[in-house]
C-alpha cells in the first residue's frame, strides 16, 4: 500500500512558482493497478517520482506500507521499486541482457547469475532469447518497451512505477503491449502506479483511476466504471470525453441478456428446405449463420443467393463482426449486434461454440435496467471505494436486474 498524505510539490520561486502537485492525499492499494490520468502538465510524473524520491515533496509524506520513504536511503529505496520510463530509457551502451540485469547487479548479484535471470525475463515479456545480445538501438520501439518492463521486473520488486510506458509506440503495438501487460499483472499481482494521459488506456488497465487536473489537483479517484458513469465534476466529464456513456458499457456485464435460438448451417452443407423459407420477406437478404464442425461461427450467408443443392463455401460468407460472450460486457454485446449483417449478435460459450444470438433491442433494455439500478455515489475520495471494488470482483452483479 502506498499513501500520499497531504503531499504538495511546487517548482521554482516567487513569480515562477508552479504548483505541480497540490495537497494530494490518496491511498494506492497493494496488488492493483492504479492509474494517474490527466492532461499534460497536471503533475502525473511529479507525483510518480515522489514515490521513489526522484523528486522530494515540498510538503507532506509518502509512505510505502506505512514506512515514510524519507527514512530509507534513496538509491536503496529505488532498487526495490521497478520503474518504466517513457521511451523505455534503456542504456544504449549495454546489451539487452545487461540492461535487464541492471538492478540485480546493483544489489550485488554476480553478473553471471543476473544475466541468467535476465534471459528468463526476456521470454516472460515475449522476446526471443537471441535478442539478449543486441543493443537497444537494434530493437523496435515496442521491443524496447518490453525490455524496459523486463528491466523493471528483474529484481522482482513489489511496487512498479510506469510513466506513459506505451505512449511512444503505434496504436496496434500499444494494444498488444497493454494486453500482455494485463496478462503479466494477473500472474504477478504487483502494486502498480501507472501514468498516462490517455483515458482509454486508463480505463482499460486501471483497477482504480486517479484523475488529476491542471495544478495538480486530484479531481476524482474511483473505479473506471465510476469515472465513466459518474464523473465527479465538469473537468472530469470533459476529460473523459464524448462517448463515455458508450465506453462505460464495458463495465456492465451482459450476464442477463436473453440468448435467442439461431438456426445454423454447417459449412459445406446445403439448406435442407431450399435456400430461403417462403415466409421470409421477398427482396431482402435472408441471413443464415454458418458454423464449422466444431460449431464455431464462420460467418453469415444470404440464403437467397445460394443455389439449391450446392454446399456453402467460405467464399459465400459475409464475415459477421465481433462476438458476444454472454459473460462479457454490454458494450461487446451491443457491438456484436450492431456489427452483424443480420442485426443479430452471435453469442458464444467459453469454447467459442455458438449458443444463439443476442438482439440489439435486448441490449438496450439491459442498458436501461442497469442505469436504473446503478449506484449513485458521489465518486470522489481518497480511495476508489470499497463498495465499487466489490462490484468489480463480481462483474455480473452490476447488471442483474433485481
Amino acid at each position, binding site marked *: 500500500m502506498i499513501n500520499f498524505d497531504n503531499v504538495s510539490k511546487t517548482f521554482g520561486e516567487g513569480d515562477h512558482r508552479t504548483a505541480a502537485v497540490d495537497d494530494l492525499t490518496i491511498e494506492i492499494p497493494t496488488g492493483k493497478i492504479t492509474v494517474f490520468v490527466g492532461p499534460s502538465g497536471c503533475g502525473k510524473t511529479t507525483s510518480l517520482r515522489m514515490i521513489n524520491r526522484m523528486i522530494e515533496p515540498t510538503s507532506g509524506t509518502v509512505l510505502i506500507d506505512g514506512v515514510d520513504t524519507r527514512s530509507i536511503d534513496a538509491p536503496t529505496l529505488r*532498487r526495490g521499486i521497478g520503474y518504466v520510463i517513457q521511451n523505455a530509457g534503456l542504456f544504449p551502451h549495454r546489451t539487452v541482457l545487461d540492461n535487464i540485469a541492471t538492478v540485480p547487479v546493483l544489489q550485488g548479484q554476480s553478473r553471471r547469475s543476473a544475466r541468467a535471470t535476465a534471459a528468463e525475463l526476456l521470454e516472460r515479456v515475449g522476446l526471443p532469447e537471441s535478442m539478449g545480445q543486441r543493443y537497444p538501438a537494434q530493437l523496435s520501439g515496442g521491443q524496447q518497451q518490453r525490455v524496459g518492463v523486463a528491466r523493471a521486473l528483474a529484481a522482482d520488486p513489489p511496487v512498479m512505477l510506469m510513466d506513459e510506458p506505451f505512449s511512444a509506440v503505434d496504436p496496434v503495438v500499444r494494444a498488444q503491449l497493454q494486453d500482455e501487460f494485463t496478462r503479466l499483472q494477473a500472474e504477478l499481482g504487483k502494486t502498480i502506479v501507472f501514468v498516462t494521459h490517455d483515458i482509454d488506456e486508463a480505463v482499460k488497465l486501471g483497477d482504480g483511476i486517479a484523475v488529476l487536473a491542471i495544478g495538480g489537483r486530484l479531481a476524482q479517484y474511483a473505479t473506471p466504471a465510476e469515472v465513466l458513469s459518474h464523473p465527479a465534476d465538469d473537468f472530469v466529464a470533459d476529460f473523459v470525453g464524448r462517448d463515455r456513456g458508450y465506453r462505460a458499457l464495458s463495465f456492465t456485464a451482459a450476464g442477463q441478456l436473453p440468448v435467442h435460438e439461431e438456426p445454423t448451417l454447417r459449412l459445406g452443407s446445403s439448406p435442407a428446405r431450399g435456400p430461403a423459407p417462403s415466409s421470409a420477406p421477398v427482396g431482402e437478404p435472408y441471413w443464415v449463420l454458418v458454423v464449422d464442425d466444431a460449431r464455431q461461427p464462420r460467418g453469415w450467408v444470404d440464403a437467397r443467393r445460394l443455389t439449391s443443392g450446392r454446399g456453402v463455401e467460405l467464399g459465400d460468407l459475409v464475415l459477421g463482426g465481433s462476438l458476444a460472450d454472454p459473460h462479457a460486457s454490454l458494450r461487446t454485446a451491443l457491438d456484436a449486434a450492431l456489427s452483424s449483417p443480420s442485426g443479430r449478435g452471435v453469442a458464444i460459450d467459453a469454447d467459442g461454440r455458438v449458443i444463439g444470438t443476442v438482439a440489439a433491442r435486448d441490449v438496450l433494455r439491459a442498458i436501461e435496467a442497469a442505469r436504473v439500478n446503478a449506484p449513485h455515489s458521489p465518486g470522489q475520495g481518497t480511495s476508489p471505494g470499497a463498495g465499487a471494488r466489490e462490484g468489480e470482483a463480481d462483474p455480473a452483479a452490476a447488471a442483474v436486474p433485481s
Partner: protein
Amino acid sequence: MNWNWLNRNTDQILSWLLAHLWLAALPTLLGLLLALPLGAIAFRYRWSYAALITVAGLLYTIPSIALFVVLPGILGTRILNPLNVVVALTLFTLALLVRVVADALDSVPPPVRQSATAMGYRPIRSLLTVQLPLAIPVIGAGLRVAAVSNVSLVSVAALLGVPQLGQLFLVGFQLDFYTPIIAGIVLCLLVAAVFDTIILVAVRLATPWTRAVSHR
C-alpha cells in the same frame, strides 16, 4: 630534397622523432586524466561550469611560447627541461578538454540519466558506468583535436632548445636549406596521423554499441 643530408642525420632525426612523440603524447594523456574529474565537476555543479570554462578559455589564449618561458620560473626547472613542455601542453590540453568533457556528459539523453537514477544508481557510479561511456565519442573527438594540436605545439619548444622535431625547422632556417624543413613537416604530419588513428581505434573499440546495425 637532399637525401644525403637525411641519410647522414638519420640517427639525430630519429631521436628528435622519439622525443617529439612522448612530448606530445604524455601531455595529451595527462590533460585527459585531469579533464575527466574537472569536466565532471563542471557538469555536475552548474556554478562551477562558468568558472572552470572561463579559466580554461583564458589559459588557452596564453601564447605557448610565453608559457614555456614563464614556467621554469614557477616550477623551478631549468629552461631546457622538457618538463616545462609537458606541463605547458598538459595545461593547454586540460583547458581544451574540460569543456569537451562537461558538454559530452551533458549530451547524454536525460531519459538515460533519469533511468539510471530510477534504477538506484548512486551519482558517482552513474557517472562512471553510464554517462562516461556514453560520452566517449564526443570526448574522443575533442581528444583528437588536442592530440594533433599538441604535436604542432611541441615544435615551438625548439626555440628554447628542447630537442624534438622542431629542431629541423630551426636548422632549415639557419642554413636556408629546405630538406630539414620538409622532413620536419612530413614527420610531424606522420606523428599527428598516428595519434589520430590510435584515438580513433580506441574510441571504436570502447564503443561497440555505436556500430550495432539494425536487425529489425
